[in-house]
């Protein structure tokens, strides 16, 4: 029989299928809701017509999207959606208190109260075990980790809530008149679990405006989603399988293999994160909202300062505005500028995870930024030709890639082993054999490098071509990309790298 009709005449099968469908809607810690999953698209098919119907009425649209976002968060993080509700209510109330109060000192105290509450929740879930472990190392006690589950995306929405309260305090924005509007901002599902970190002054006016999405928005959004799926679910998930082998047991591999694993992870983390960001930005665009750009071909950077202007832009600009500048920025002399830079990156490192390796990674980026700043007057005198550009790019790329080793490897010892492997056990003659054995992996990497280094105007032109193409072409492209995901799907769900941050 060409087509199996599994449910006809099999009551048990129908019951089983219905139970399975029902279970799909429940929280499953083993299967977080990713934009690249089939279940998300099933939900989106249900979401879209209702959203289209309610979009004209801002109030109804807000209520519906908030409900959907909370369900989305429940599906990803279980009952922690209640904590999100509580956080939003506290922040919203305190922001109104700040706006009402006259005395500067009291307003400042309320702002700090809000920040401390937000950071305490983040600190408890994300850093409690890390601090307990370190404390026990110092006092040589027995470390019994707390049984904590990190709520998905807590680092992202905590930063959003802090920036909102600070902006209200500074008078940059007025607190939203409705709690639902604030909850909409904080829980907006495209950006909820993995960013981009949306700023209130940019996003809240969009809620009020409730702009209808144009055809260009909708299909431009779909194009971004297609690109995001290719990056995240096809390329990153595929190349991750080889990279994991190298990072899990570096002692088994030669210098050539290790080097390719390091390059692979450098591209994997970019594809993984920027791909997910593309999907989030695309989904928001479909709904008529703009989240801003989060990645701007970061590996084209010719120095570390430029890299951080292109990499995870929403985080780096948040750190600049809410950590670096409040610390004094570059207003308090040369030494303080370097120190502020270093401290900001240290906090950025710690934001990525509760482990010393992230602190080290952040610190080394801080050192790199300080060195670049210190050398700037001297660098400015070097003629800007293609050779200098190439050397600058190479140095930046190598530095960033090597630091990714510390970010990814299990511990410091493994990182050192990986790096020393590259330098100690390296034989160029192994490259042809590597290409032969890892042909698909190499093709993926090549495709990725091409995607990364083609001029932005070409990518934009492709997007416009897609938007203007007939619906059958759009369907075919979408279907082919989904089939590529199925073809390259790994046996295990490769979790989104930034999911737990």
């Amino acid at each position, binding site marked *: 029989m060409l087509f199996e009709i599994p449910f006809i005449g099999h009551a048990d099968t129908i019951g*089983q*299928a219905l139970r399975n469908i029902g279970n799909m809607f429940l929280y499953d810690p083993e299967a977080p809701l990713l934009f690249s999953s089939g279940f998300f698209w099933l939900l989106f*098919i249900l979401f*879209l*017509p209702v959203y289209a119907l309610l979009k004209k009425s801002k109030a109804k649209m807000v209520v519906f999207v908030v409900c959907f976002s909370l369900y989305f968060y429940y599906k990803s993080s279980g009952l922690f959606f209640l904590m999100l509700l509580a956080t939003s209510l506290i922040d919203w109330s305190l922001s109104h208190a700040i706006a009402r109060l006259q005395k500067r000192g009291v307003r400042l105290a309320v702002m700090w109260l809000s920040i401390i509450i937000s950071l305490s929740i983040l600190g408890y879930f994300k850093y409690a075990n890390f601090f307990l472990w370190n404390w026990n190392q110092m006092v040589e006690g027995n470390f019994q980790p707390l049984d904590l589950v990190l709520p998905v995306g807590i680092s992202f929405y905590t930063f959003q809530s802090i920036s909102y309260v600070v902006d209200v305090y500074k008078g940059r924005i007025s607190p939203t008149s409705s709690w639902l509007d604030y909850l909409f901002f904080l829980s907006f599902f495209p950006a909820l679990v993995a960013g981009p970190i949306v700023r209130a002054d940019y996003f809240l006016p969009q809620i009020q405006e409730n702009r209808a999405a144009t055809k260009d928005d909708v299909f431009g959004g779909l194009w971004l989603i297609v690109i995001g799926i290719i990056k995240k679910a096809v390329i990153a998930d595929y190349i991750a399988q080889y990279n994991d*082998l190298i990072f899990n047991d570096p*002692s088994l591999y030669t210098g050539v*293999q290790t080097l390719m694993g390091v390059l692979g992870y450098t591209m994997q983390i970019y594809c993984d994160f920027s791909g997910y960001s593309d999907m989030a930005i695309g989904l928001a665009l479909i709904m008529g909202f703009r989240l801003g750009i989060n990645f701007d071909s970061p590996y084209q950077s010719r120095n570390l300062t430029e890299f951080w202007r292109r990499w995870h832009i929403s985080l780096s600009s948040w750190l600049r505005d809410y950590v670096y500048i409040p610390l004094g920025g570059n207003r308090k002399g040369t030494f303080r500028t370097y120190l502020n830079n270093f401290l900001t990156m240290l906090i950025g490192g710690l934001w990525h995870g509760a482990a010393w390796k992230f602190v080290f990674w952040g610190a080394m980026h801080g050192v790199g930024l300080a060195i670049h700043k210190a050398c700037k007057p001297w660098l400015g005198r070097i003629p800007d030709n293609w050779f200098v550009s190439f050397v600058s790019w190479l140095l930046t790329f190598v530095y960033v890639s090597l630091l990714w080793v510390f970010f990814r490897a299990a511990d410091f010892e493994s990182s050192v082993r990986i790096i020393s492997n590259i330098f100690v056990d390296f034989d160029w003659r192994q490259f042809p054999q590597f290409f032969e054995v890892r042909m698909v992996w190499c093709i993926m990497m090549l495709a990725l490098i091409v995607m990364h280094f083609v001029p932005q105007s070409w990518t934009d032109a492709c997007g416009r071509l897609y938007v203007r193409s007939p619906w059958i072409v759009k369907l075919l492209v979408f279907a082919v990309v989904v*089939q590529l995901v199925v073809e390259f799907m790994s*046996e295990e769900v490769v979790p989104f790298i930034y999911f737990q941050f």
Partner: protein
Amino acid sequence: MKSPYAGLWLIVALALAMFLTYSFSQDISLGSWTVKKAPFHDALLAEEEAMEDSLSLDSLYASTPVEEQTVDSVPKSILIIGDSMTFNLALRLAQYAKQNGHTIHAVNWDSSNTKIWAESDTLEYFMKKYDADFVFISLGSNELYFKKPETRLPYVKRILEVIDTVPYVWIGPPNWEEDTGVNDMLQRACRRGSFFRTDGMKLARKKDKIHPTRQASAEWIDSVMRWMPASAHPILADRPDSTVGRVNPNIVFLKALNK
């Protein structure tokens, strides 16, 4: 629903309908390439299939020692295959082979797993090449912490299909932490009395804290061979005496560029 959402909805719905329909249809092949299916079928009927497995393959059943079997006294052509654990196991197994008159060949494929072996013809090739009539398998270490170990069951079954009627012992992975169910899955899949469960053993590890040391691997094989009489197909497994000394078996290393 007004355009442009109508257009988008149709595109997404049509695409999903296509993938859903294909997941319940016969395979489409283009030459040697078969178009893979989105896992809708499995997702919808998952529990039913799992129930079938649990009914036919009781985990306790497989591990329970079989009724006492007569020892097969015919010298065997032993083939031991598997991941990076295989090398050290083969060294000790070679001493048992020498003591008991068997011949032994080993294929050590670093970082390999059940999927890699199932999807290649390597096992079939070496079984034919060495005319193996007893197989030891050491796989599962690289799948110990998979979230859904049952997804590896088809690969395990495929490997066992290749081995077919040849007697075998699957040496379970030496856990360094509690696994997520790989041992249970392997035990269910293997013939009764053909799976040696290693996860309870305390083994000294190398610096990587994963691989057992050479001495620990020798003790591991000693343990397998002590268990041999209770297995489904016992072969001669007398402990090597002091005259055996070090034996260098024929070991094929499959690791491409690996050291």
